[in-house]
Protein backbone atom coordinates (compact mmCIF):
# COMPACT_ATOMS: atom_id res chain seq x y z
CA UNK A 1 0.00 0.00 0.00
CA UNK A 2 1.52 3.33 -1.01
CA UNK A 3 1.22 6.40 1.18
CA UNK A 4 -1.19 7.86 -1.36
CA UNK A 5 -3.46 4.84 -1.23
CA UNK A 6 -3.33 4.98 2.54
CA UNK A 7 -4.40 8.62 2.48
CA UNK A 8 -7.25 7.89 0.09
CA UNK A 9 -8.51 5.06 2.28
CA UNK A 10 -8.60 7.45 5.17
CA UNK A 11 -10.64 9.91 3.17
CA UNK A 12 -13.18 7.25 2.26
CA UNK A 13 -14.23 7.22 5.91
CA UNK A 14 -15.43 10.80 5.63
CA UNK A 15 -19.15 10.92 5.09
CA UNK A 16 -21.06 13.33 2.86
CA UNK A 17 -22.88 16.17 4.61
CA UNK A 18 -26.45 15.60 5.72
CA UNK A 19 -29.39 17.16 3.95
CA UNK A 20 -29.89 19.78 6.65
CA UNK A 21 -26.29 20.99 6.20
CA UNK A 22 -26.77 21.26 2.45
CA UNK A 23 -30.13 22.97 2.91
CA UNK A 24 -28.72 25.54 5.35
CA UNK A 25 -25.75 26.37 3.14
CA UNK A 26 -27.95 26.63 0.06
CA UNK A 27 -30.32 28.97 1.87
CA UNK A 28 -27.40 31.16 2.85
CA UNK A 29 -26.15 31.26 -0.74
CA UNK A 30 -29.61 32.08 -2.07
CA UNK A 31 -29.88 34.96 0.41
CA UNK A 32 -26.58 36.28 -0.92
CA UNK A 33 -27.82 35.87 -4.49
CA UNK A 34 -31.05 37.66 -3.64
CA UNK A 35 -29.04 40.53 -2.26
CA UNK A 36 -26.44 40.84 -4.98
CA UNK A 37 -27.55 38.53 -7.76
CA UNK A 38 -28.82 40.57 -10.65
CA UNK A 39 -26.49 43.48 -10.38
CA UNK A 40 -25.35 45.63 -13.21
CA UNK A 41 -21.98 45.75 -11.52
CA UNK A 42 -21.48 42.07 -12.19
CA UNK A 43 -22.23 42.59 -15.85
CA UNK A 44 -19.79 45.43 -15.93
CA UNK A 45 -16.98 43.39 -14.50
CA UNK A 46 -17.25 41.03 -17.46
CA UNK A 47 -15.52 43.53 -19.67
CA UNK A 48 -11.97 43.38 -18.31
CA UNK A 49 -12.40 39.72 -17.51
CA UNK A 50 -12.96 38.94 -21.12
CA UNK A 51 -9.29 39.77 -21.37
CA UNK A 52 -8.47 37.81 -18.26
CA UNK A 53 -7.90 40.91 -16.27
CA UNK A 54 -5.53 40.57 -13.41
CA UNK A 55 -6.90 42.60 -10.58
CA UNK A 56 -4.17 44.30 -8.66
CA UNK A 57 -5.87 47.32 -7.08
CA UNK A 58 -6.10 46.48 -3.41
CA UNK A 59 -9.55 46.53 -1.87
CA UNK A 60 -8.64 48.53 1.19
CA UNK A 61 -11.98 50.31 1.41
CA UNK A 62 -12.67 49.27 4.98
CA UNK A 63 -10.03 51.43 6.61
CA UNK A 64 -10.79 54.30 4.28
CA UNK A 65 -14.49 53.90 4.97
CA UNK A 66 -14.00 54.07 8.70
CA UNK A 67 -12.00 57.28 8.28
CA UNK A 68 -14.39 58.80 5.77
CA UNK A 69 -17.52 58.04 7.73
CA UNK A 70 -16.37 60.02 10.73
CA UNK A 71 -15.83 63.11 8.59
CA UNK A 72 -18.59 65.72 8.79
CA UNK A 73 -20.87 65.45 5.78
CA UNK A 74 -23.47 67.52 3.98
CA UNK A 75 -26.15 69.37 5.92
CA UNK A 76 -25.03 67.84 9.19
CA UNK A 77 -25.32 64.26 7.90
CA UNK A 78 -22.52 61.82 8.58
CA UNK A 79 -20.76 60.04 5.73
CA UNK A 80 -22.74 56.89 6.51
CA UNK A 81 -26.01 58.79 6.35
CA UNK A 82 -25.07 60.40 3.05
CA UNK A 83 -24.19 57.04 1.50
CA UNK A 84 -27.53 55.64 2.70
CA UNK A 85 -29.50 58.66 1.48
CA UNK A 86 -27.87 58.34 -1.94
CA UNK A 87 -28.82 54.65 -2.02
CA UNK A 88 -32.45 55.50 -1.22
CA UNK A 89 -32.49 58.19 -3.88
CA UNK A 90 -30.99 55.87 -6.50
CA UNK A 91 -33.36 52.97 -5.82
CA UNK A 92 -35.42 52.73 -9.00
CA UNK A 93 -39.10 53.50 -8.64
CA UNK A 94 -41.60 50.80 -9.61
CA UNK A 95 -43.04 50.66 -13.12
CA UNK A 96 -40.79 53.36 -14.45
CA UNK A 97 -38.33 53.44 -17.32
CA UNK A 98 -35.29 55.54 -16.65
CA UNK A 99 -33.90 57.31 -19.67
CA UNK A 100 -30.65 59.21 -19.94
CA UNK A 101 -27.74 59.90 -22.25
CA UNK A 102 -24.11 59.61 -21.36
CA UNK A 103 -20.72 60.52 -22.73
CA UNK A 104 -17.78 58.33 -21.80
CA UNK A 105 -14.10 59.01 -22.34
CA UNK A 106 -12.08 55.85 -21.86
CA UNK A 107 -8.32 56.26 -21.63
CA UNK A 108 -6.01 53.27 -21.66
CA UNK A 109 -2.46 53.97 -20.57
CA UNK A 110 0.60 51.75 -20.75
CA UNK A 111 4.26 52.79 -20.80
CA UNK A 112 4.79 54.78 -23.99
CA UNK A 113 1.27 54.15 -25.20
CA UNK A 114 -2.03 55.91 -24.66
CA UNK A 115 -5.31 55.40 -26.48
CA UNK A 116 -8.58 57.24 -26.12
CA UNK A 117 -12.04 55.95 -26.92
CA UNK A 118 -15.21 57.97 -26.62
CA UNK A 119 -18.64 56.44 -26.39
CA UNK A 120 -21.93 58.29 -26.63
CA UNK A 121 -24.83 56.28 -25.42
CA UNK A 122 -28.58 56.59 -25.13
CA UNK A 123 -29.99 54.38 -22.39
CA UNK A 124 -33.33 53.10 -21.27
CA UNK A 125 -33.56 50.88 -18.25
CA UNK A 126 -36.28 49.23 -16.22
CA UNK A 127 -35.17 49.16 -12.64
CA UNK A 128 -37.66 46.55 -11.49
CA UNK A 129 -38.36 43.09 -12.90
CA UNK A 130 -38.26 42.11 -15.62
CA UNK A 131 -35.00 43.96 -15.65
CA UNK A 132 -33.96 45.33 -19.03
CA UNK A 133 -31.18 47.61 -20.10
CA UNK A 134 -31.31 48.90 -23.63
CA UNK A 135 -28.32 50.91 -24.79
CA UNK A 136 -27.60 52.42 -28.16
CA UNK A 137 -24.01 53.53 -28.50
CA UNK A 138 -21.62 55.14 -30.95
CA UNK A 139 -17.92 54.69 -30.41
CA UNK A 140 -15.10 56.73 -31.86
CA UNK A 141 -11.34 56.94 -31.42
CA UNK A 142 -9.52 53.70 -30.63
CA UNK A 143 -11.92 50.91 -31.51
CA UNK A 144 -9.78 48.40 -29.70
CA UNK A 145 -9.56 45.61 -32.28
CA UNK A 146 -13.16 46.10 -33.36
CA UNK A 147 -14.09 46.51 -37.01
CA UNK A 148 -15.33 49.99 -37.85
CA UNK A 149 -18.85 48.76 -38.57
CA UNK A 150 -19.14 47.66 -34.96
CA UNK A 151 -18.66 51.21 -33.72
CA UNK A 152 -22.41 51.66 -33.73
CA UNK A 153 -24.39 49.08 -31.84
CA UNK A 154 -27.44 48.49 -29.79
CA UNK A 155 -27.54 46.07 -26.88
CA UNK A 156 -30.49 44.70 -25.01
CA UNK A 157 -29.55 43.03 -21.75
CA UNK A 158 -32.02 41.01 -19.75
CA UNK A 159 -31.78 38.16 -17.30
CA UNK A 160 -31.81 35.87 -20.33
CA UNK A 161 -28.69 37.28 -21.93
CA UNK A 162 -27.79 39.87 -24.49
CA UNK A 163 -28.90 40.65 -28.00
CA UNK A 164 -26.57 42.90 -29.96
CA UNK A 165 -27.57 44.70 -33.14
CA UNK A 166 -25.08 46.32 -35.53
CA UNK A 167 -26.99 48.82 -37.72
CA UNK A 168 -24.13 49.34 -40.22
CA UNK A 169 -24.33 45.66 -41.17
CA UNK A 170 -27.97 45.15 -40.25
CA UNK A 171 -26.59 42.24 -38.26
CA UNK A 172 -28.00 40.70 -35.14
CA UNK A 173 -26.01 38.57 -32.72
CA UNK A 174 -27.12 36.71 -29.65
CA UNK A 175 -24.63 37.43 -26.89
CA UNK A 176 -22.55 39.30 -29.47
CA UNK A 177 -18.81 39.07 -29.88
CA UNK A 178 -17.01 39.71 -26.61
CA UNK A 179 -15.11 42.62 -28.09
CA UNK A 180 -18.38 44.35 -28.79
CA UNK A 181 -19.37 44.11 -25.20
CA UNK A 182 -16.01 45.55 -24.34
CA UNK A 183 -16.91 48.58 -26.39
CA UNK A 184 -19.99 49.16 -24.36
CA UNK A 185 -18.79 50.30 -20.99
CA UNK A 186 -21.71 52.55 -20.23
CA UNK A 187 -23.82 51.15 -17.48
CA UNK A 188 -26.52 52.26 -15.11
CA UNK A 189 -24.78 54.33 -12.45
CA UNK A 190 -27.64 53.99 -9.99
CA UNK A 191 -27.62 50.19 -10.05
CA UNK A 192 -23.84 50.10 -9.82
CA UNK A 193 -23.97 52.36 -6.80
CA UNK A 194 -26.69 50.32 -5.12
CA UNK A 195 -24.71 47.16 -5.63
CA UNK A 196 -21.63 48.71 -4.05
CA UNK A 197 -23.71 50.13 -1.21
CA UNK A 198 -25.23 46.74 -0.41
CA UNK A 199 -21.73 45.31 -0.28
CA UNK A 200 -20.64 47.98 2.21
CA UNK A 201 -18.05 49.41 -0.17
CA UNK A 202 -19.12 53.07 -0.27
CA UNK A 203 -17.36 55.85 1.60
CA UNK A 204 -18.13 59.51 1.59
CA UNK A 205 -15.41 61.53 -0.14
CA UNK A 206 -16.47 65.08 0.71
CA UNK A 207 -18.12 67.99 -1.05
CA UNK A 208 -17.21 69.23 -4.50
CA UNK A 209 -18.57 71.33 -7.35
CA UNK A 210 -19.32 69.91 -10.77
CA UNK A 211 -20.13 72.40 -13.52
CA UNK A 212 -21.15 74.89 -10.86
CA UNK A 213 -23.55 72.39 -9.26
CA UNK A 214 -23.05 71.72 -5.55
CA UNK A 215 -22.14 68.03 -5.41
CA UNK A 216 -20.87 65.25 -3.22
CA UNK A 217 -18.27 62.58 -3.84
CA UNK A 218 -18.99 58.94 -3.01
CA UNK A 219 -16.08 56.57 -3.45
CA UNK A 220 -16.28 52.83 -4.07
CA UNK A 221 -13.34 50.45 -4.02
CA UNK A 222 -14.56 47.07 -5.17
CA UNK A 223 -13.40 44.12 -7.26
CA UNK A 224 -10.37 45.96 -8.60
CA UNK A 225 -12.26 49.10 -9.51
CA UNK A 226 -11.91 52.44 -7.79
CA UNK A 227 -14.97 54.43 -8.70
CA UNK A 228 -15.90 57.96 -7.69
CA UNK A 229 -19.53 59.00 -8.03
CA UNK A 230 -20.12 62.72 -8.22
CA UNK A 231 -23.77 63.23 -7.30
CA UNK A 232 -25.93 66.30 -6.89
CA UNK A 233 -26.04 67.48 -3.32
CA UNK A 234 -29.79 68.13 -3.43
CA UNK A 235 -31.17 64.87 -4.88
CA UNK A 236 -28.11 62.58 -5.23
CA UNK A 237 -28.61 62.13 -8.97
CA UNK A 238 -25.33 61.05 -10.61
CA UNK A 239 -23.57 63.74 -12.63
CA UNK A 240 -20.29 62.03 -13.37
CA UNK A 241 -18.64 58.71 -12.58
CA UNK A 242 -14.88 58.21 -12.75
CA UNK A 243 -13.67 54.63 -12.70
CA UNK A 244 -10.07 53.40 -12.60
CA UNK A 245 -8.89 49.85 -13.00
CA UNK A 246 -6.12 47.73 -14.47
CA UNK A 247 -6.49 45.09 -17.12
CA UNK A 248 -4.15 42.61 -18.68
CA UNK A 249 -4.55 41.20 -22.13
CA UNK A 250 -4.89 37.45 -22.41
CA UNK A 251 -2.89 37.60 -25.62
CA UNK A 252 0.21 39.26 -24.23
CA UNK A 253 1.68 40.41 -20.98
CA UNK A 254 0.59 43.96 -21.72
CA UNK A 255 -1.12 45.74 -18.88
CA UNK A 256 -2.89 49.01 -19.08
CA UNK A 257 -4.29 51.40 -16.57
CA UNK A 258 -7.76 52.39 -17.62
CA UNK A 259 -9.54 55.56 -16.63
CA UNK A 260 -13.19 55.79 -17.57
CA UNK A 261 -15.00 59.10 -17.16
CA UNK A 262 -18.73 59.12 -17.84
CA UNK A 263 -20.87 62.22 -17.70
CA UNK A 264 -24.64 61.81 -17.45
CA UNK A 265 -27.63 63.82 -18.53
CA UNK A 266 -30.42 64.25 -15.98
CA UNK A 267 -32.54 61.11 -15.58
CA UNK A 268 -35.92 61.22 -17.28
CA UNK A 269 -38.60 58.99 -15.78
CA UNK A 270 -41.14 57.48 -18.18
CA UNK A 271 -44.11 55.41 -16.97
CA UNK A 272 -43.57 51.75 -17.91
CA UNK A 273 -46.63 50.48 -19.72
CA UNK A 274 -47.63 48.80 -22.96
CA UNK A 275 -47.04 51.90 -25.03
CA UNK A 276 -43.56 52.60 -23.62
CA UNK A 277 -42.28 49.00 -23.35
CA UNK A 278 -40.77 49.16 -26.84
CA UNK A 279 -38.19 51.66 -25.59
CA UNK A 280 -36.59 48.82 -23.68
CA UNK A 281 -36.12 46.57 -26.68
CA UNK A 282 -34.13 46.36 -29.87
CA UNK A 283 -36.36 46.55 -32.91
CA UNK A 284 -34.31 45.61 -35.96
CA UNK A 285 -35.62 46.47 -39.42
CA UNK A 286 -36.54 43.82 -42.00
CA UNK A 287 -33.83 41.85 -43.80
CA UNK A 288 -31.67 41.59 -40.74
CA UNK A 289 -28.89 38.98 -40.85
CA UNK A 290 -28.48 36.79 -37.82
CA UNK A 291 -25.12 35.61 -36.56
CA UNK A 292 -24.91 32.73 -34.12
CA UNK A 293 -27.80 31.13 -32.37
CA UNK A 294 -29.92 32.14 -29.49
CA UNK A 295 -28.49 30.46 -26.39
CA UNK A 296 -30.62 27.57 -25.27
CA UNK A 297 -32.29 28.87 -22.15
CA UNK A 298 -35.62 27.11 -21.73
CA UNK A 299 -36.77 29.40 -18.92
CA UNK A 300 -36.51 32.35 -21.24
CA UNK A 301 -39.15 31.14 -23.65
CA UNK A 302 -38.90 32.80 -26.99
CA UNK A 303 -36.69 35.58 -25.67
CA UNK A 304 -34.30 36.79 -28.33
CA UNK A 305 -36.04 34.95 -31.13
CA UNK A 306 -36.57 36.90 -34.32
CA UNK A 307 -40.26 36.55 -33.71
CA UNK A 308 -40.05 38.32 -30.35
CA UNK A 309 -37.91 41.09 -31.78
CA UNK A 310 -40.30 41.64 -34.70
CA UNK A 311 -43.19 41.68 -32.28
CA UNK A 312 -41.41 44.37 -30.25
CA UNK A 313 -40.74 46.23 -33.47
CA UNK A 314 -44.36 46.05 -34.62
CA UNK A 315 -45.54 47.63 -31.38
CA UNK A 316 -43.34 50.61 -31.95
Amino acid at each position, binding site marked *: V*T*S*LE*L*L*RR*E*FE*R*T*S*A*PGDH*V*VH*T*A*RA*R*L*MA*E*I*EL*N*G*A*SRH*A*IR*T*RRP*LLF*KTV*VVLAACGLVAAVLAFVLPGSGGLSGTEIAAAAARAMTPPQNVIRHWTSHTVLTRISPGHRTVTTIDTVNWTAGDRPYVLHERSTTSGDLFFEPSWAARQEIE*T*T*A*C*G*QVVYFPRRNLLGFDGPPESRDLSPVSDPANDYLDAYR*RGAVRYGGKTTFREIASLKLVVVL*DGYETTYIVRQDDYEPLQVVSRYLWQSSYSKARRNVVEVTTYSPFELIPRNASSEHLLHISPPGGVSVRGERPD*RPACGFYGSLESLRRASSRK
Partner: protein
Amino acid sequence: VTDGDAIEGSLIDGARFALVFDRHFRAIHRFLQARVGSQLADDLASETFVIAFRRRASFDRARDDARPWLHGIAVNLLREHRRSEDRRLRAFTRLAHEGPGAVPDLEPCLDPTVAAALLELSLAERNLLLLYAWAELSYEELAEALALPIGTIRSRLNRVRSKLDRRLTGLNEALVPRGDAS
Protein backbone atom coordinates in the same frame (compact mmCIF):
# COMPACT_ATOMS: atom_id res chain seq x y z
CA VAL B 1 -24.49 23.24 -19.25
CA THR B 2 -20.91 23.53 -18.02
CA ASP B 3 -19.92 25.27 -14.82
CA GLY B 4 -18.47 28.03 -17.02
CA ASP B 5 -21.85 28.51 -18.70
CA ALA B 6 -23.65 28.57 -15.36
CA ILE B 7 -21.23 31.09 -13.89
CA GLU B 8 -21.39 33.28 -16.98
CA GLY B 9 -25.18 33.17 -16.80
CA SER B 10 -25.05 34.05 -13.11
CA LEU B 11 -23.42 37.37 -13.95
CA ILE B 12 -26.81 38.46 -15.20
CA ASP B 13 -29.11 36.13 -13.32
CA GLY B 14 -27.49 35.26 -10.00
CA ALA B 15 -29.82 32.31 -9.38
CA ARG B 16 -27.96 30.30 -11.99
CA PHE B 17 -25.09 29.99 -9.55
CA ALA B 18 -27.22 27.53 -7.59
CA LEU B 19 -26.31 24.92 -10.20
CA VAL B 20 -22.64 25.22 -9.24
CA PHE B 21 -23.61 24.79 -5.60
CA ASP B 22 -25.74 21.73 -6.32
CA ARG B 23 -22.91 20.11 -8.27
CA HIS B 24 -20.03 20.74 -5.93
CA PHE B 25 -21.14 21.54 -2.40
CA ARG B 26 -20.98 17.97 -1.12
CA ALA B 27 -17.48 17.41 -2.47
CA ILE B 28 -16.18 20.66 -1.02
CA HIS B 29 -17.81 19.92 2.32
CA ARG B 30 -16.38 16.44 2.44
CA PHE B 31 -12.89 17.71 1.72
CA LEU B 32 -13.18 20.35 4.43
CA GLN B 33 -14.72 17.89 6.87
CA ALA B 34 -11.78 15.54 6.47
CA ARG B 35 -9.49 18.48 7.20
CA VAL B 36 -11.15 20.24 10.12
CA GLY B 37 -14.17 18.19 11.22
CA SER B 38 -17.82 18.50 10.38
CA GLN B 39 -18.72 21.45 12.57
CA LEU B 40 -16.19 23.86 11.10
CA ALA B 41 -16.66 22.33 7.65
CA ASP B 42 -20.34 23.34 7.73
CA ASP B 43 -19.35 26.98 8.07
CA LEU B 44 -16.37 26.91 5.74
CA ALA B 45 -18.12 25.06 2.92
CA SER B 46 -21.00 27.51 3.08
CA GLU B 47 -18.56 30.42 3.15
CA THR B 48 -16.70 28.97 0.15
CA PHE B 49 -19.80 29.25 -2.03
CA VAL B 50 -20.75 32.72 -0.82
CA ILE B 51 -17.22 33.92 -1.61
CA ALA B 52 -17.28 32.11 -4.95
CA PHE B 53 -20.54 33.83 -5.84
CA ARG B 54 -19.14 37.25 -4.94
CA ARG B 55 -16.05 36.55 -7.02
CA ARG B 56 -17.81 34.81 -9.88
CA ALA B 57 -16.74 37.50 -12.31
CA SER B 58 -13.13 36.41 -11.80
CA PHE B 59 -13.79 32.80 -12.83
CA ASP B 60 -12.27 31.88 -16.18
CA ARG B 61 -15.46 30.93 -17.98
CA ALA B 62 -13.55 29.04 -20.65
CA ARG B 63 -13.15 26.33 -18.03
CA ASP B 64 -15.85 23.71 -17.85
CA ASP B 65 -15.25 22.61 -14.30
CA ALA B 66 -15.37 24.95 -11.28
CA ARG B 67 -14.04 22.32 -8.88
CA PRO B 68 -10.40 23.52 -8.83
CA TRP B 69 -11.48 27.13 -8.38
CA LEU B 70 -13.80 26.20 -5.51
CA HIS B 71 -11.15 24.08 -3.82
CA GLY B 72 -8.74 27.00 -4.17
CA ILE B 73 -11.17 29.20 -2.27
CA ALA B 74 -11.71 26.48 0.32
CA VAL B 75 -8.00 26.00 1.07
CA ASN B 76 -7.58 29.75 1.34
CA LEU B 77 -10.26 29.74 4.01
CA LEU B 78 -8.44 26.90 5.77
CA ARG B 79 -5.42 29.13 6.27
CA GLU B 80 -7.23 30.92 9.05
CA HIS B 81 -8.03 27.62 10.70
CA ARG B 82 -4.67 25.96 10.65
CA ARG B 83 -4.58 25.74 14.46
CA SER B 84 -7.91 23.92 14.47
CA GLU B 85 -6.63 21.46 11.91
CA ASP B 86 -3.40 20.91 13.83
CA ARG B 87 -5.28 20.41 17.10
CA ARG B 88 -7.44 17.84 15.42
CA LEU B 89 -4.48 15.99 13.92
CA ARG B 90 -2.75 15.94 17.29
CA ALA B 91 -5.87 14.47 18.84
CA PHE B 92 -5.80 11.67 16.28
CA THR B 93 -2.17 10.89 17.05
CA ARG B 94 -3.09 10.48 20.73
CA LEU B 95 -5.44 7.67 19.77
CA ALA B 96 -2.45 5.46 19.01
CA HIS B 97 -1.31 5.54 22.64
CA GLU B 98 -4.49 6.15 24.58
CA GLY B 99 -7.20 4.43 22.54
CA PRO B 100 -10.51 5.77 21.24
CA GLY B 101 -11.79 6.63 24.72
CA ALA B 102 -9.09 9.28 25.07
CA VAL B 103 -10.85 11.62 22.68
CA PRO B 104 -14.52 10.71 22.92
CA ASP B 105 -15.93 13.49 20.72
CA LEU B 106 -13.61 12.89 17.81
CA GLU B 107 -15.29 11.84 14.57
CA PRO B 108 -13.86 8.61 13.17
CA CYS B 109 -11.55 9.64 10.42
CA LEU B 110 -7.80 9.57 10.36
CA ASP B 111 -5.39 6.82 11.23
CA PRO B 112 -2.93 8.08 13.91
CA THR B 113 0.13 7.47 11.74
CA VAL B 114 -1.39 9.37 8.83
CA ALA B 115 -2.41 12.20 11.16
CA ALA B 116 1.09 12.40 12.58
CA ALA B 117 2.61 12.47 9.11
CA LEU B 118 0.27 15.22 7.97
CA LEU B 119 1.04 17.19 11.10
CA GLU B 120 4.67 17.37 10.07
CA LEU B 121 3.90 18.87 6.69
CA SER B 122 3.69 22.61 6.15
CA LEU B 123 0.25 23.99 5.35
CA ALA B 124 1.21 24.53 1.70
CA GLU B 125 2.48 20.94 1.43
CA ARG B 126 -0.62 19.61 3.12
CA ASN B 127 -2.91 21.57 0.81
CA LEU B 128 -1.10 20.31 -2.26
CA LEU B 129 -1.02 16.69 -1.14
CA LEU B 130 -4.62 16.53 0.03
CA LEU B 131 -6.03 18.34 -2.98
CA TYR B 132 -4.31 15.66 -5.03
CA ALA B 133 -5.14 12.66 -2.86
CA TRP B 134 -8.56 13.59 -1.51
CA ALA B 135 -10.04 16.09 -3.96
CA GLU B 136 -8.43 14.13 -6.82
CA LEU B 137 -7.40 17.21 -8.72
CA SER B 138 -5.10 16.68 -11.68
CA TYR B 139 -1.78 18.54 -12.00
CA GLU B 140 -3.45 21.13 -14.23
CA GLU B 141 -6.29 21.55 -11.78
CA LEU B 142 -3.88 21.85 -8.87
CA ALA B 143 -2.06 24.57 -10.76
CA GLU B 144 -5.37 26.41 -11.15
CA ALA B 145 -6.48 25.91 -7.56
CA LEU B 146 -3.19 27.00 -6.03
CA ALA B 147 -2.22 29.56 -8.68
CA LEU B 148 1.15 27.91 -9.27
CA PRO B 149 2.92 26.87 -12.49
CA ILE B 150 2.33 23.24 -13.39
CA GLY B 151 6.07 22.47 -13.25
CA THR B 152 6.16 23.69 -9.67
CA ILE B 153 3.15 21.55 -8.82
CA ARG B 154 4.82 18.48 -10.29
CA SER B 155 8.12 18.91 -8.46
CA ARG B 156 6.56 19.93 -5.14
CA LEU B 157 4.13 17.07 -5.20
CA ASN B 158 6.94 14.58 -5.81
CA ARG B 159 8.86 16.03 -2.89
CA VAL B 160 5.84 15.96 -0.58
CA ARG B 161 5.00 12.40 -1.50
CA SER B 162 8.56 11.25 -0.80
CA LYS B 163 8.49 13.09 2.49
CA LEU B 164 5.19 11.45 3.39
CA ASP B 165 6.50 7.99 2.49
CA ARG B 166 9.50 8.48 4.74
CA ARG B 167 7.41 9.83 7.59
CA LEU B 168 4.85 7.07 7.38
CA THR B 169 7.52 4.38 7.44
CA GLY B 170 9.22 5.89 10.47
CA LEU B 171 6.04 6.78 12.31
CA ASN B 172 4.44 3.43 11.75
CA GLU B 173 7.13 1.86 13.89
CA ALA B 174 7.22 4.64 16.46
CA LEU B 175 3.46 4.88 16.98
CA VAL B 176 2.75 1.17 17.43
CA PRO B 177 1.72 0.75 21.08
CA ARG B 178 4.38 -1.05 23.12
CA GLY B 179 2.06 -3.88 24.07
CA ASP B 180 1.68 -4.76 20.39
CA ALA B 181 5.36 -4.63 19.56
CA SER B 182 5.92 -8.28 20.14
